[in-house]
C-alpha cells in the first residue's frame, strides 16, 4: 500500500490510518473503505457521520483542518449519498467521507456538519438546493442558494429531466448517449422513471441520415458525370423526395401526407456525417430548393425545430420569404384533398 503522507517524516499507511481511526470511533462506524484511483474513501454509517468528522478534525493524529467540499450524489433506487472531502494541511492526506443518506428518495435527512466546519453551511445549502436533502441542525437551508427562490424540484436528481431535453430532442444524430459506435440510435437504459429517450422522430432522422449517406457514397462512384445533387434526388429516396417536394405547379399528390407522419426531411441531414465527396453539394441543394420550399415547410410543421435549423440558407436569411407563402400553400393541398 502506498504511503499516505508524502510530506511527513513518519509515513502512515492506509492500514495504520484506519486502525488509528477505528480506535477513536469504533469498528462499526465505517461500513467499508475503498482506495480506487488514489481516492481514499471512508464509507461512514449515517449514525457516525458527525462523530467521524469530529474525530478527524480534532484528534491531533489526523488534523483534517481544511474543509474541501460537501455534495450529494444520486444513488439510484437506494436514495442519495453525500460525500464530504476533508484535507489535512499538516499531513497532506485527503479523505472522502461517503454516507448513504437515510430516508430513501422521499425524505433524505442527514445531520449537519456546520457545527464542525463553517464551510459546510453553504455546501449543505447547495446540496439541499440540488437534491432536497435535509440537514438536521443546519441554521437555515432556505432560501435556495443557487436556483431561483420559487424553483420547484431538485435539479440534480436523476428523475429531474433536463428541461431542454424535454422540450426538444437533441438536434441531430450525434448525441453521445443515444448512438452506438455505428451511429445507430439506441435506447438508453433509464434507471429511474421515464427519462426522455430517443423519440420516433429521432430514429426517423437517424435512419434517413444514414440512407442519405449511403446513397451519396455509392452512386457518386458510378455516375461521376452527373451532378451529385441529382444523384441524391434520384437514387436516395425517389418517393420521399417527390412526396416532400411538391412542384410549384399544382400536381396531383400521390399521398395526402398526414401531419403526424414525420417524414424524413432531406435538408438538415447532410451535415451530421461529413463525407469527403458530397461535401460541396449540401449547400446547393437547400439553396436550389428554397424557392420551392413553402409546401414542404407547411407539411413538416410538427418538426420540432423548424425546417433547416442548421442550414446555411436559414442562417443567411435566405428563407424569410417562407411565411407569406405559407398560408396559400398549406391551404391548397387541404382544399384538394
Amino acid at each position, binding site marked *: 500500500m502506498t504511503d499516505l503522507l*508524502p*510530506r511527513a517524516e513518519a509515513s502512515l499507511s492506509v492500514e495504520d490510518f484506519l486502525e488509528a481511526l477505528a480506535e477513536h470511533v469504533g469498528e462499526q462506524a465505517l461500513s467499508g473503505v475503498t482506495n*480506487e*484511483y*488514489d*481516492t481514499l*474513501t471512508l464509507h461512514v454509517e449515517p449514525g457516525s457521520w458527525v462523530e467521524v468528522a469530529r474525530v478527524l478534525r480534532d484528534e491531533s493524529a489526523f488534523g483534517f*483542518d*481544511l*474543509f*474541501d*467540499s460537501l*455534495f450529494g*450524489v*444520486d444513488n439510484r433506487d437506494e436514495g442519495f449519498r453525500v*460525500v464530504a*472531502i476533508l484535507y489535512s*494541511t499538516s499531513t*497532506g492526506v*485527503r479523505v*472522502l467521507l461517503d454516507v448513504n443518506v437515510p430516508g430513501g428518495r422521499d425524505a433524505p435527512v442527514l445531520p449537519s456538519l456546520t457545527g464542525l*466546519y*463553517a*464551510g459546510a*453551511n*453553504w455546501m449543505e445549502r447547495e446540496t439541499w438546493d*440540488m437534491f432536497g436533502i435535509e440537514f438536521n441542525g443546519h441554521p437555515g437551508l432556505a432560501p*435556495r*442558494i*443557487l*436556483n*431561483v427562490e420559487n424553483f420547484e424540484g431538485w*435539479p*440534480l436528481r436523476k428523475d429531474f429531466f*433536463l428541461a431542454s*431535453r424535454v422540450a426538444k430532442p437533441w438536434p441531430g444524430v450525434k448525441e*453521445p*448517449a443515444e448512438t452506438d*459506435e455505428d451511429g445507430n440510435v439506441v435506447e*438508453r437504459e433509464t434507471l429511474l422513471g421515464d427519462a426522455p429517450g430517443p423519440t420516433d422522430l429521432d430514429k426517423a432522422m437517424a435512419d434517413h441520415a444514414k440512407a442519405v449517406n449511403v446513397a451519396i457514397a455509392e452512386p457518386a462512384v458510378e455516375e461521376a458525370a452527373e451532378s451529385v445533387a441529382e444523384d441524391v434526388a434520384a437514387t436516395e429516396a425517389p418517393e420521399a423526395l417527390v412526396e416532400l417536394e411538391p412542384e410549384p405547379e399544382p400536381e396531383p399528390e400521390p399521398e395526402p401526407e398526414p401531419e403526424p407522419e414525420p417524414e424524413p426531411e432531406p435538408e438538415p441531414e447532410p451535415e451530421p456525417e461529413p463525407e469527403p465527396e458530397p461535401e460541396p453539394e449540401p449547400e446547393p441543394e437547400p439553396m436550389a430548393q428554397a424557392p420551392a420550399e413553402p409546401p414542404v415547410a407547411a407539411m413538416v410543421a410538427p418538426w420540432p425545430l423548424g425546417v433547416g435549423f442548421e442550414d446555411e440558407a436559414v442562417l443567411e436569411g435566405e428563407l424569410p420569404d417562407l411565411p407569406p407563402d405559407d398560408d396559400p400553400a398549406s391551404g391548397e393541398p387541404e382544399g384538394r384533398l
Partner: protein
Amino acid sequence: MSDLETRERIHPGTAPGEDIALEIIGDGDFDTAEMTLSIGPAHPATHGVLRIIMEMDGERIRDAHPVIGYMHRGFEKLAEHRDYRQIKALVNRHDWLSGFANELGVALAVEKMLEMEVPERAVWIRMLLAEWNRILNHLMFIGSYAIELGAITPMFYAFREREDIQYLLESATGGRLHFTYNQVGGIKVDLPKGFLQQSTDIAATIRKRLQDYKDLILGNEIFQARTVGVGALEREVALAYGVTGPTLHATGVAEDSRVTEPYLKYGEIDVTVPVGEHGDCYDRFYCLVHRIQASLDIIDQVHDAMPSGPVNQKLPKVVKAPEGWTYLRIENPLGQLGYYLESDGTKTPWRLKMRTPSFSNVAVIPHLLRGTLVPDAIAVLGSVFFVVGDVDR
C-alpha cells in the same frame, strides 16, 4: 520579502488612522440609524452579478449576507448529458478567467480513471499554458483591484500585458478566453512554430514590468492605507471555510497543490509559493502579485525542459470512464479546483461535482465584513478574488 518590509515601515502594525487623534464633538454619543443596504446584483465592486445585503449600524457593517445564484447555469447537470470530450467546453466557462486550468482538471480526472499515459511533451505544454493562464488571471485582478481602490493606471498596464499573453495563447489554441485546448490524452495540436521564442520574450518583458506593479501599487502609500490591517482573515477560519489560493496563502499557509500534491510535472521543477503573514487585504494582494513572479519562474524552467515528441494520442471512438469515482484537484489561479468525477461506465459522467475556489472564497465574505466600514467593504470584496461565474456555476 522587501514589500512586506515596506509595509512594516510605513504602517508599523497598526490599522491606518488609528494614530490620528480625532476631536470628538459633543458627548460622542451619536445617534446612528440601523439600515439595510443592498449592494448589487449589478454593482462595480462585486465583479459581476453578486448581491450583498448589509445590515448597517451607521457606517459600520453589522452583518452581511451574500446572495449568489444569479449566474447559475446548471453546469453540473449539463455535464451529465455530455460526452467526456465535450465537457471541456463547459468547464472552461464556469470560471472564464481560468479556462485552461478548468479544462485541464477535467482532462486529468478522466485520464486518471482511464489510467492513461499522456505524452511527455503534452504534459509540459499543459504546464506552460496553465502558468500563462494563471498570469493572465492575476493581471486581471491586479487591474481590477487597483481600480476599485481608485487607481486607474494599473488597469491599463495590466491589459497591456494581458493583450500580449492573449495573443500568445491565441496563436496556439485559437482562443483568447475559452481555449478548449486540452483533450483526453493530450492537447489538441502542437505549439506553432516560434511559440517558445515568443513565450520567452513575453516572459522577460513581464518580468521586467512586474517591478512597476510592485512600485506602483504595493509601494503606494494610499494603497497601503486602504489595505493594511483591513479585512484580516484568520488561518483557522480560512481553512474551515475551505478558502484556498492566494487568499489562504496570505494567512501564512503555503497550501498549493502544485507543491503538496504535484500533478503534471510540477514535482520535477521548483515551485515557489508566496505567503503572507497577516491575512489582510494587503497580504492577499501581495501574494497575487508575487504569484506572477513564481509563475514566470516556472515558465522559464518549462522552456528549458520542453521535450519533443507527440502531443496527443489516438483515442477510441467512444471514451468511457470505468465505473467508480475519483477526486482530482489542481491549483486553479484562484485556489483549489476540485473535480469529483463519478462514472457508471457509460459515455457520460454519472456525476461531475465542480468544487470551485470562488464558492468558498465568497462564503467567507460575511465573516470578513462584520465590523468593517463600508469603504473597507469594497477593499475586502476585491481582495478575496472570485469570479461570479465560478461561484454560481
